[in-house]
């Protein structure tokens, strides 16, 4: 041992001995879990006040009656844009086109639900013929309770979309296809796919209640956007994915 000044030597040895003890690795995990529980309880605490659920129901009821018409929200355009911008900021750049089109066309009522639900053929009358195969795939795999009310081409911020709009009594769902921009690629952005197999990688994202599942081909991006559960939305894209890819490849060739 190197010789130290008489007063320093015991202090150094003591420090060395005590600092040899380290916290067990699981302690940090326990602490983080404990703090997470506290945070969750705090977040839930607001809802545990007895008057809050009642007030919330009242507000939702009144708001639904006033601002929802035919399943569409009619809110001031400015507030829609603010809300859309906030939602879009939750997802990656390559996810944004699909969510943006779903929000403006389906949720904000850009193309509202008709008073009478059309038959499939009638709903698809505005769809360009080259996307008929895509429509057929959606028709084959869509859960029974979803009904298509429009399949059309739309324009949003100068960008063209093929948009299949479906709904149940309580949920909206969009299948959206758009040409891939130069800087848009899940692969290039190194986003990890949620599912990969049979040549199809599926990417997921979430913005509040909206679930997104997407895939990319050489020239296109395709999205399923809905307020289904995360797993249901993913499963739907997993079922549709290979046929969407095949249909889009034909367009690319």
């Amino acid at each position, binding site marked *: 041992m190197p010789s130290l000044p008489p007063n320093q030597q015991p202090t150094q*040895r003591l420090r060395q001995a005590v600092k040899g003890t380290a916290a067990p690795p699981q302690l940090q995990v326990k602490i983080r879990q404990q703090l997470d529980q506290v945070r969750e309880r705090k977040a839930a605490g607001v809802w545990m006040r007895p008057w809050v659920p009642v007030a919330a129901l009242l507000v939702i009821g009144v708001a639904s009656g006033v601002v929802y018409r035919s399943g569409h929200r009619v809110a001031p355009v400015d507030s829609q844009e603010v809300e859309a911008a906030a939602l879009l900021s939750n997802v990656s750049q390559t996810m944004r086109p699909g969510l943006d089109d779903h929000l403006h066309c389906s949720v904000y009522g850009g193309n509202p639900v008709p008073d009478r639900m059309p038959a499939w053929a009638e709903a698809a009358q505005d769809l360009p013929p080259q996307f008929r195969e895509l429509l057929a795939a959606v028709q084959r795999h869509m859960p029974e309770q979803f009904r298509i009310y429009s399949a059309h081409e739309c324009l949003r911020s100068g960008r063209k979309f093929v948009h299949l709009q479906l709904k149940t009594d309580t949920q909206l769902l969009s299948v959206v296809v758009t040409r891939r921009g130069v800087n848009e690629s899940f692969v290039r952005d190194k986003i990890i796919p949620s599912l990969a197999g049979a040549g199809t990688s599926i990417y997921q994202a979430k913005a509040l209640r909206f679930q997104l599942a997407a895939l990319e081909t050489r020239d296109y991006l395709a999205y399923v956007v809905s307020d289904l559960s995360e797993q249901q939305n993913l499963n739907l894209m997993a079922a549709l994915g290979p046929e969407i890819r095949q249909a889009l490849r034909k367009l690319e060739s």
Partner: protein
Amino acid sequence: MTGDVSRAQESPSAAQAASANFDAEAMPHLNDLYRSAVRILGDPQRAEDVVQEVYLQAWKSFHRFEAGTNCRAWLYKILFHCVHHHRRKWFRFPLLKETEEFLEANLVAPAPIPEQLTDAQILAALDQLPGDFRAAVLLVDVEEFAYKEAADILGIPIGTVMSRLSRGRKLLREQLAAVAQSYGIGQNAKAKSS
């Protein structure tokens, strides 16, 4: 608690920022707090419990912590508060032999520390020190807090910190010399020098 209410009313992004700040400020001191707790309590399991309690208390009152001030000292203050609280729970009667008067009466002349002592022997000797003295030695000599910081952490005057430190050091030397003697360490050197 005011803090709880204010945090419950924070926006999600503010709450996330607070969590991130807390992680960045407080979590790096986990090892320091744990090893001090082990030495103060003499029981790793109790030390884990107390350190968890420290982080919980720290999180609840993190809004009172001023960014840029000494987070480590703040956490140590909470640690000692928690230790006292747990001691009251664990022990129904006060520990004996902890008064300065008792130690004053029982201290002997300081002895040199032999060099060949192991870490385990040094820790065992430290653990033998009365709690108040051990805390002063740990804070100043091991964790390198200034006297003023140690006084603030322990909630006692600086003069008391200095006196406990001095007596703690003396007692530690004595303990170590006794251990060394029992193993025959240092006797050869003493014989050579005489």
